């Protein structure tokens, strides 16, 4: 089974949300990482046929998903980033409704629905109204409905939003066991959600894939760009202003251990450490104030130098006059 994304684009007015994205997905787990506005949700919506692309195509085993129509959607499971519910539905009603939409036989639907609700920890709330659910409960309900029809292609948009750590671990185990012969694409801001289960990471920025590969392989691209240094606590704030800092640990002796993502050594004595996927994320999506550390450093040095020269000329002139 292969899902091919071929030069897919989506434009909203003059804004290009997805820019000629291509990928070939085979059974496994794909983590889609990107900042807000990178185009992840738009891409996922197009993969699910919820949004029409402006150009390009998506093929499942060589056939366009638009042509496949309901045959494709019958093999699809989707959890949107945000979804509503009909106000009179209980959790079980919701699952049975989704089962009907997915074309599941009514007799089997109830059994499968109850089992899945039990699996995601909502077994005791099956008869409760969805409007009484917390955000995490609603999210778990969404996960349950996404796998209801045992889809071959499972697309999950921010599936762990609102879940506590125990539920996130349960979710990871569920996806791991589920993905043996399926294509699972999940987008997240929480790097740890995909770090351990993803076979391939797709890093998306400004509507395009900027990195693609196994977690270990792409993390190696920031080898030598992640530093740890022990500095006085007061200096830690200054470092945070100048560089992309992934972690600061304040010790009781007034020192702080700072983990910095930077092309150049951020402070004397800083040592390079092994990068993680989170470091990669921070490196790719570092903000404007740290776009190029060398550039910032150089421009700051140049300004100081000009000031020094200016002051020096002023002193010299005064000395000459005397």
């Amino acid at each position, binding site marked *: 089974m292969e899902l091919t994304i071929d030069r897919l684009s989506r434009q909203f007015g003059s804004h290009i949300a997805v820019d000629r994205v291509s990928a070939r997905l085979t059974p496994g787990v794909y983590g889609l990482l990107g900042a807000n506005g990178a185009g992840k949700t738009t891409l996922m919506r197009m993969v699910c046929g919820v*949004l029409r692309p402006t150009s390009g195509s998506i093929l499942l085993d060589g056939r366009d998903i638009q042509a496949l129509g309901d045959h494709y959607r019958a093999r699809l499971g989707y959890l949107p980033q945000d979804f509503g519910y009909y106000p009179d539905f209980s959790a079980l009603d919701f699952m049975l409704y989704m089962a*009907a939409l997915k074309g599941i036989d009514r007799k089997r639907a109830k059994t499968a629905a109850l089992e899945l609700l*039990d699996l995601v920890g909502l077994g005791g709330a099956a008869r409760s109204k969805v409007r009484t659910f917390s955000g995490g409960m609603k999210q778990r309900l969404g996960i349950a409905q996404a796998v209801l029809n045992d889809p071959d292609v499972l697309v999950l948009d921010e599936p762990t939003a609102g879940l506590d750590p125990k539920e996130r671990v349960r979710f990871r185990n569920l996806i791991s066991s589920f993905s043996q012969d399926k294509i699972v694409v999940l987008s997240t801001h929480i790097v740890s959600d995909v770090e351990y289960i993803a076979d391939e990471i797709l890093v998306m920025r400004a509507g395009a894939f900027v990195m693609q590969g196994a977690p270990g392989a792409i993390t190696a691209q920031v080898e030598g760009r992640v530093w740890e240094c022990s500095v006085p606590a007061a200096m830690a704030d200054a470092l945070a202003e100048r560089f992309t800092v992934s972690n600061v640990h304040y010790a009781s002796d007034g020192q702080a251990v700072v983990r910095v993502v930077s092309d150049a050594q951020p402070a004397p004595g800083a040592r390079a450490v092994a990068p993680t996927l989170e470091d990669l994320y921070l490196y790719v999506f570092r903000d404007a104030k740290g776009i190029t550390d060398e550039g910032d450093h150089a421009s700051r040095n140049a300004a100081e130098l000009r000031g020094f020269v200016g002051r020096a000329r002023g002193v010299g002139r005064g000395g000459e006059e005397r």
Partner: protein
Amino acid sequence: MRRLVSGRRNAVRAEKLLREHYVAERAGVLSPSERAVAIAECVDAVEYALTCNDVGSEAVGSVGRAGAERAASERHANEATGYELESSRGRYGGSLGSASGFSRTCSAKTRSASPSFFSFVAFQARAIPARIWIAQAALIAFVLWVCALEPAEGFVNCVAAALGAIVAGLGVPIVMASRLYRMAELESACRFNCRSVAAARMVVIGSVDVLVLGAAACIVPSLTNAYALAFAMYACVPYFAVCAGSFAVSRRARGFSAMAVSVMLSLVAIGVCVLLQRVFPWVYGPAAVGAWAIAAAVAGVWLAREAHMFLCTAAEGIDAFGCLGRFAYNEKGCDVSWS
């Protein structure tokens, strides 16, 4: 006591075996024959645990129990075939609480069953809240009561027109409920997508509305001097117009509340009907029957067109609604093109 201990021990052993073999399976270190042996061991352990006592089965877990029972019966039935290997993942999954296991054990049966659109329509009818049916019934009762109080022909015809507008105002939001309750994105990705859902609801609501208006058209003439056919015609014009107008506005207005549109149009239609009855009472007399018939035909054609285009828009995705001036239809079919 011995069975209790044995049952618990076997349940623990079963779970441990399953975990070990699951990890090995994931690592790909088991050959197919080794996998089959592993499956047999696991199932035997789980079966024994289940037959012993509830303590044993609790250790496996309620989720694992159902999966193991099903898997055990499948193994006995399919021992000579290669199906055992296919269902092996189900047994792993069931006992470890994996959704995939349960889905696989029933997916071949659930996915192969292909419910018809008729059964889907029937399900949509069950999904519509009971308050809608109660409101429809209450409306009929109210109309009958009002007509019995004032049986004059002109007044009854005005009530018929108002009834048509109210029935439309009650029913159209149900058709658009997917957008109203933010379910459109979820439904769009399903086998029966938004278009199917909207079409099914149109069938259900339309059928019920026909029954309501038909019942009123049959009963009211027996209480008054009105004619059944004329009553139905006076009801149809505002009904068709409100429905068509609601579909037209909802299709073009992004984020507009379908319920608000429908209620507003319904109130406007009621106001126009009442105004006509006060200012131009001859409009509801015999002289204007022909005009009402023509208006009903035109409104009916308009409704058919707007309903068709609404369904086409629903099939185009969640951002197809509200594309005023940017969305062009090919009237020959449902092929739409971005302009």
